[in-house]
């Protein structure tokens, strides 16, 4: 490890690593009985691999990668629905680049585009809104993706569209929330998790209190963290310190960006535009109660599912959702196995020929292992 060049503050990183070792000794953890810390956010997973934190940290601490990559947790049926929307001749389908290459049953959005569908990559829902203004005879559908970090942006865009009276703009809403799947993992008696590193930028929007149940009801520590390597080491140390001292609390390592109660304007816009769906399907986790958002009745005209009768929308056909054969996306997504344990990893599934979103999204765990893992199988020949 090129310690000095990789870390802006190598002395700080070294200090944190030895403090971590001290707490591990206090807890009495070993390689056979490691402490399992789940980092929920896919951005954290990438940071951990980019800086090799999984190798630098005491061997009795293991990072478990959580379901915090919004493209990865989309079931294939949702990708199929996105493709079906994109294939409508009147539609301009706008998506973040991350979702372009995610495979559906028939095809990915990229393949749909190659076959003539009008699929455009946008950086922001505001750009989709501008497209709708520029192309009044077309239907602009924005692929609303993401956790609480990106939800306010679509909420504010819908409010803006409503103010302007735009009638050719709608959202295919796949916004999901972080706390609910964590509860599912904690209720799973097969899962052993000792603590959590909480997502920084999600928490900037929702604050730290939505995680209170993790400490209160499940007696597990959770520390909200930033994305720099020393942030993550500091957060791991804070989790371990809580365990060593027999505490379980919600702590905020990233208070320089995360306010305790979140961002009030974002929260107000989300509350105005969205309501919880009774349930929403997650790849690898199945239907989870109240884990997805949809547009409220007063914004129904901007809901692509209602407008085009797809997905959960009124009049939509029931969906069948078998996943690709031989892939272990669900097990990887929920931290049950490491990506390299998937039989397809590096064989049937690579970034160029992905079977699952985890291999293509910039936040997916399989992509992180592939790019930085060193565990990549040496290609034959």
């Amino acid at each position, binding site marked *: 490890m090129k310690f000095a060049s990789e870390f802006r503050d190598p002395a700080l990183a070294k200090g944190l690593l030895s403090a971590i070792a001290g707490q591990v000794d206090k807890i009495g953890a070993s390689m056979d009985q490691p402490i399992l810390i789940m980092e929920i956010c896919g*951005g954290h997973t990438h*940071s951990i691999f980019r800086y090799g934190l999984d190798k630098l940290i005491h061997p009795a601490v293991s990072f478990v990668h959580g379901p915090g990559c919004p493209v990865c947790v989309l079931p294939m049926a949702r990708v199929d629905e996105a493709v079906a929307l994109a294939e409508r001749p009147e539609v301009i389908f706008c998506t973040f680049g991350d979702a372009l290459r995610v495979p559906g049953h028939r095809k990915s959005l990229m393949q749909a585009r190659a076959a003539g569908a009008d699929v455009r990559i*946008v950086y922001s829902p505001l750009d989709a809104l*501008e497209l709708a203004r520029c192309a009044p005879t077309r239907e602009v559908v924005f692929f609303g993706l993401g956790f609480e970090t990106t939800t306010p*942006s679509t909420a504010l865009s819908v409010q803006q569209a409503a103010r302007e009276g735009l009638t050719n703009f709608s959202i295919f809403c796949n916004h999901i929330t972080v706390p609910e799947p964590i509860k599912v993992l904690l209720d799973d008696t097969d899962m052993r998790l000792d603590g959590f590193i909480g997502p920084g*930028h999600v928490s900037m929007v929702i604050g730290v209190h939505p995680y209170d149940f993790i400490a209160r009801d499940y007696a597990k520590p959770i520390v909200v963290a930033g*994305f720099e390597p020393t942030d993550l080491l500091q957060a791991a140390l804070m989790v371990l310190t809580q365990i060593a001292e027999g505490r379980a609390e919600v702590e905020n390592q990233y208070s*320089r960006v995360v306010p305790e109660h979140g961002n009030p304007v974002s929260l107000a816009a989300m509350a105005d535009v969205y309501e919880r769906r009774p349930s929403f399907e997650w790849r690898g986790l199945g239907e989870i109660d109240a884990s997805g958002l949809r547009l409220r009745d007063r914004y129904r005209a901007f809901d692509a599912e209602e407008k085009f009768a797809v997905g959960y929308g009124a009049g939509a056909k029931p969906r069948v959702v078998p996943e690709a054969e031989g892939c272990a996306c669900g097990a990887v997504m929920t931290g049950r196995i490491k990506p390299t344990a998937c039989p397809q990893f590096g064989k049937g599934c690579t970034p160029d020929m992905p079977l699952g979103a985890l291999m293509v999204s910039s936040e997916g765990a399989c992509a992180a292992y592939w790019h930085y893992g060193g565990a990549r199988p040496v290609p034959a020949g």
Partner: protein
Amino acid sequence: MCLGIPGQIIGIADEARLMAMAEVSGVRRAVNVACVASGPLTDLVGRWVLIHVGFAMSVIDAEEAERTLQALRDLGQVQEAMDAMAESENALAAAR
């Protein structure tokens, strides 16, 4: 998509729509500042903000901005955001 990128507010783009001009890693683009504006938009000029998919979500200080940019550069996320902005510009230019 989930990681914000720091940018500096350099002017006002569209007061009524709460849009400001930001400079992100040398590239200019209009961003929505509804979530960080507590007074007149001109108060934001010169400040650093964390921008998520075109929306300023948090005001940060210059040092935090620099550190975050470095971390995002290491993760390849700066290039990704820049590419996405450029693609978006192309999509819009074709429609205008």
